[in-house]
């Protein structure tokens, strides 16, 4: 999972990030919880880092279940 490029999924709240974590864990999808990178936001928040090729699969898994604020390349 440490190979290649990454995207981060941003949420409007820590609770949403936690919910997303639960959903992805349940489905066995690869991800990592990290702090929101400084260059994206100065807020103290967490986000989900994913391997870029997994983006579609993970976005599909979350759509409709948790509100995603944005997805950006890392």
């Amino acid at each position: 999972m440490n190979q290649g490029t990454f995207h981060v999924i941003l949420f409007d709240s820590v609770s949403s990030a936690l919910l997303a974590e639960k959903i992805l864990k349940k489905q066995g999808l690869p991800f990592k919880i990290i702090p929101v990178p400084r260059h994206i936001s100065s807020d103290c928040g967490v986000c989900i880092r994913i391997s870029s090729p997994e983006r579609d699969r993970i976005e599909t898994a979350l759509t409709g279940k948790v509100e995603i604020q944005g997805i950006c390349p890392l």
Partner: protein
Amino acid sequence: MTREIDARGLACPQPVLLTKKALEDHSEIVVIVDNETAQENVKRMAQSQGCEVTIERRDGDINLLISKGCSCEIPDTEVTTQGTLVIVIGSDTMGRGDDGLGTVLMKSFIHTLLETSPQADSLIFFNTGVKLTIQGSEILEDLRTLSERGVKILVCGTCLDFFEMKDRLAAGIISNMYDITETMTGAGRLVQI
């Protein structure tokens, strides 16, 4: 004199280790890697040592020009006079209150350690903190990376024994109260989580 290191095709953490070794004897080196993970790892390590890093891409390969620069000596001495940096983790969550939140914060904290300079010299895990070092822990990969970069990870043996997890240790080394106490009392800076 510029020393060239060809780290193409080498698995992690080889490129980082080779770079580290070369920096001991040379003030300017060129490291050639063939993937971005290696590039980032080498870059981060060099920067944590106070070096300047310039990246050039050539025919699919990545050249990292690393130079020690004159500023390198200053942070080095500063760190030496301040002694070792020890981080003490006595719980599997970060902070008290909500465990769900504390778990996320801990993962986030350990991840951030990978990107923070200066690097810690030692991490000490005790009480429920030892649960972070056993099989199935979500921060294992990060702990192994820290370990590969030279961070000493001490895990309280009494605690592993108490939770009946001794045979499931997956990162760090089993330690005793003597080593743990000496590491803590001998620290220049001690960060308690």
